[in-house]
């Protein structure tokens, strides 16, 4: 029976104690132990982006992150952006643009976009595409997603 470690993880601004085994990934801890289901397991290889989370303000792959390395760091999933003006604007535009189809990639897309707009408030279209190239979408063909992020950036800049 593998010994469990008690970790204190700061998720969306709140400290939670979680008992984890060894070197389990943050994706697994979030979903199985902390009930955070907005992060998805699309490939478990760090390619698809459905597992994207934000650690200390930077988007990373939770499927490649060890929970044991996350103590003392600021972890955010989409639930942690409920009051965030940039996120609300992005969500509104994505809902309207047609950039949400099956929705499996959506949380990851929104986290990548929110963190990018926080770094670069007036991106051009090519920059938005580069920022999102780590979020695979099989449904939309990307145009409506890129439109939504560009439109949100414009609205936020006003």
């Amino acid at each position, binding site marked *: 029976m593998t010994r469990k470690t008690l970790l204190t993880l700061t998720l969306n601004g709140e400290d939670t104690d979680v008992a984890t085994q060894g070197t389990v*990934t943050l994706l697994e801890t979030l979903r199985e132990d902390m009930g955070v289901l907005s992060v998805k397991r699309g490939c*478990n290889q760090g390619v698809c982006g459905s597992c994207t989370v934000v650690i200390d303000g930077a988007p*990373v792959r939770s499927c490649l992150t060890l929970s044991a390395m996350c103590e003392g760091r600021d972890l955010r999933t989409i639930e942690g952006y409920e009051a965030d003006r940039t996120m609300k604007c992005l969500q509104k535009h994505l809902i309207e643009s047609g950039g949400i189809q099956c929705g499996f990639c959506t949380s990851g897309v929104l986290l990548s976009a929110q963190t990018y707009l926080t770094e670069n408030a007036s991106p051009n279209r090519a920059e938005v595409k580069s920022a999102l190239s780590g979020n695979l979408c099989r449904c939309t063909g990307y145009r409506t997603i890129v439109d939504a992020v560009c439109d949100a950036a414009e609205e936020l800049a006003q």
Partner: protein
Amino acid sequence: MSELIRPDTIEEATQFLVSHPDARVLAGGATLIAMRNAGLVEMSHLVSLSGIHDLQGIEKTPKGIRIGAMTRHCETAGCDLLTGSLAVVRQAAGMIANRPVRNMGTMGGAVSNADPAADYLPALACVDAIATIAGPDGRRDVAITEFVEDWYETALGEGEILVSITLPLARDEPSLYRKVARVTGDYATASCAMAMDGDAVRVAIGACGPGPIRDTDAEEELRGNLANPDAVSAFAARLAGLADPIDDVRGSAEYRLALIPRLIRAGLKMMQTAEVAK
């Protein structure tokens, strides 16, 4: 289920690795954890280097630009010190995978893994980078061009880790990294890193063998003859002769060999335009 070890110093790390042969070094995790998730690798312990201060940061020293092994790709891709002849390294960093992976992966991790199709090795090879290694017997330096010994095998011995990569100071000359890949962020099917050096050019080819391909003798013979198409072809043929490409899902060996001269010619042309533009 493996255990996580978090040493504070290089010595702690190397000592642990020597006494635990089934332990693996964890840098950014971008490659190692992906392989573990796929069941391709198992380990008794993961020895994380993220707490070791000496492995962090990029700094300019009198000897050159020192890039700590735990420097993430996003830092390298955004580093203002990597201009001119060193821009090739910055470009290569910026083409690795995508933004979230670049927030995680490290130069030390990538170079130690020595994936033949990864982006750093040809770029570092063409700028004459030096790898500093630490191990149970102390420190040593290895030229990047000698770092890769065989397919996925490097000069790192038992218990040794990469500490830093040192690049010579930047020359005010153009350099270029180009990769042929199926989609954005894919590993290279073939790649070409080039840096102008007066009337010579430094060239390293990637993804066409176990390690980056460079021929300094051929570069010297080409010196002063960059505008001579026959000389360039002969040069490219020398590099192609050293190549040992494989057939894989990204392309055939023949295709890779065919790309070598074409990438070199196209790269020279691009850098000459940049030269003129300067």
